[in-house]
């Protein structure tokens, strides 16, 4: 579902990805960079005090917040950057919402010596100013996008447009498991390292699998990354969407209840839209979940019954964050806080053991936490 100009670059990308996937040199370089630069494997942290507080028996946290640049985004950004260099591309384009993917891409490009341009909505640039500074320190150009709400959706629009103009020399590093094929596959495949590690770690540290594996889901790269490696297991896989501040269209970013199939940014998936097929406005306290479409691979798993989708409101997410801070000394990203926010509901359903993915650290959300929690 991409403009014709991008079709051949997408086909080239798919071919390059397939070739790289079985090339020992590529896999070795990626593995080395993930280990020595990104800091993988990330820990699986038992959270006994929070578990006790909530009435859980066991709670494990998969710590993507401890990766370099502070969120799971780097797994994908770095892998795509290596792939792009291999394809002979010298420039990188990326979009960013909260700024984490932008920072990760800027870092990967600095690491590999690639020129980097990041498209970012003006609203996001204002509320995530520290991430703008980080990108610039890494030598990236940050291009303000004025259109619409000035957030992630508009940034993707503009990045796709920019790519169409430079696809001969530039690669577009999409930050979540969405966009035209092969991006969702690519991103999912570069993120499943999260769940693969987590699965081995939970077996190693506790000897058994939990009842529930839980992650937040915006586009879906974090959700797929954690949940996919558990697809063959007899347990519940749960993704949490942004419930925002209300249930009317425009007040949330919960695509399962609120959305229906549609096409946006080159893929057909569950989409928040009006009757005319125009993309709806969305709302979430968390910039990273504030996106109108669920990635197509995650949507497919949901419709197939393999993954449950739940929602957590802004307020619930804030409470979840505070509980983790005070009981375990870990400051979660607002995105991850949505997963934490679901724990009381799971306990009420009788769940005793949970593995939860912390997608990133909450430093970027400090001003929101300060304002909303009165710190």
């Amino acid at each position, binding site marked *: *579902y*991409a*403009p*014709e*100009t*991008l*079709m*051949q*670059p997408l086909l080239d990308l798919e071919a390059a990805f397939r070739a790289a996937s079985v090339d020992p040199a590529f896999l070795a370089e990626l593995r080395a960079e993930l280990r020595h630069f990104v800091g993988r494997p990330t820990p699986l942290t038992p959270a006994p005090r929070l578990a006790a507080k909530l009435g859980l028996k066991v709670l494990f946290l998969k710590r993507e917040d401890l990766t370099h640049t502070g969120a799971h985004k780097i797994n994908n950004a770095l892998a795509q950057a290596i792939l792009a260099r291999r394809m002979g591309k010298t420039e990188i384009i990326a979009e960013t919402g909260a700024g984490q993917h932008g920072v990760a891409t800027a870092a990967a490009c600095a690491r590999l010596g690639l020129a980097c341009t990041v498209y970012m909505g003006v609203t996001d640039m204002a509320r995530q100013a520290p991430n703008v500074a980080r990108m610039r320190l890494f030598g990236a150009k940050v291009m303000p996008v004025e*259109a*619409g709400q000035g957030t992630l*959706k508009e940034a993707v*629009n503009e990045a*796709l*447009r920019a790519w*169409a*103009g*430079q*696809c*001969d020399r530039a690669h577009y590093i999409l930050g979540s498991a969405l966009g035209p094929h092969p991006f969702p596959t690519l991103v999912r495949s570069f993120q499943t390292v999260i769940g693969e590690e987590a699965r081995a770690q939970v077996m190693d540290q506790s000897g058994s699998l939990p009842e529930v594996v839980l992650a937040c889901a915006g586009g879906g790269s974090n959700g797929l990354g954690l949940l996919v490696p558990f697809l063959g297991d007899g347990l519940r896989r749960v993704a949490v969407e942004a419930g925002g501040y209300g249930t009317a269209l425009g007040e949330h970013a919960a695509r399962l209840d609120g959305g229906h*199939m*549609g*096409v*946006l*940014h*080159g893929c*057909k998936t569950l*989409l928040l*839209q009006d*009757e*005319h*097929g*125009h*993309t709806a406005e969305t709302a979430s306290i968390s910039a990273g979940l504030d996106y109108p479409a669920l990635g197509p691979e995650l949507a497919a798993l949901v419709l197939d019954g393999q993954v449950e989708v739940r929602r957590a409101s802004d307020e619930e997410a804030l409470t979840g964050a505070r509980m983790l801070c005070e009981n375990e000394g870990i400051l979660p990203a607002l995105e991850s806080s949505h997963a934490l926010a679901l724990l009381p509901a799971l306990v009420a359903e009788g769940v005793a053991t949970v593995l939860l993915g912390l997608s990133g650290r909450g430093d970027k959300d400090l001003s929101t936490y300060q304002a909303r929690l009165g710190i």
Partner: protein
Amino acid sequence: MSLNPLLPFLMAGDPSLEALPALLAEAKALGLEAIELGLPHSDPIADGPVLQAAAHRAIARGATPRRVLESLAGLSESPDIILFTYLNPLFQMGAERLKQLLAPTPVRALLVVDLPFGEESDLEATLRTAGYPMVPLLAPTTTLGRARQILLDRPDPGPSACFAQRFAYVVARLGVTGTGQGMDREPISRRLEALKGLTERPLAVGFGLSDPQSLSVIRTMGATPVIGSALVQELAEGRSLREALTPRMVDDV
């Protein structure tokens, strides 16, 4: 087959939906056989700033896909219309509803920017059978092999069909719609020669063309130039269609 001298693009609902019938009549009076009409979309990923702004103005003024099509119903004084659109509005409407809405209009073909051939083949076949074929798009990145596939998948209805239903849209350069910084003549000429070796269909060339000289050059290459963003901009600034198009339809080179 005589060369169609110009294929103008209008954004439905900009300046206003009410003005559309008169604009189309004027186009017809100017002797234009066909015209591209943009259906305003919330996320026009293939459009540059001018058409984005026009689309958002039109949406703000209530130019929903349904109202646009209803405003075209029963128009006799109009060139053939190629409806330029993104997939999702059509997808949400569904093929049956769409056919009903299109039937009383001068729409003769669909140009769906983000529908590569083969992606929604049932929908596409239904619409083609109903008389609304999809315009094949050929980008600078489209290899000749892929161009052959595209032209096969969206077949030529033959010389008896109207221009709107026959032509292939050749994208002049990388990027999105909008006025470029002068045209690079040589590569376009080579592409057109190569494509003419593949097909008998008329070719239209768009993206980045606006000055009379560039348009003229395209005509000397035996293709129909498309004028979009520049025209939409001029209309938004209050120029008439006649004023905007007349100097662009004659070759004084």
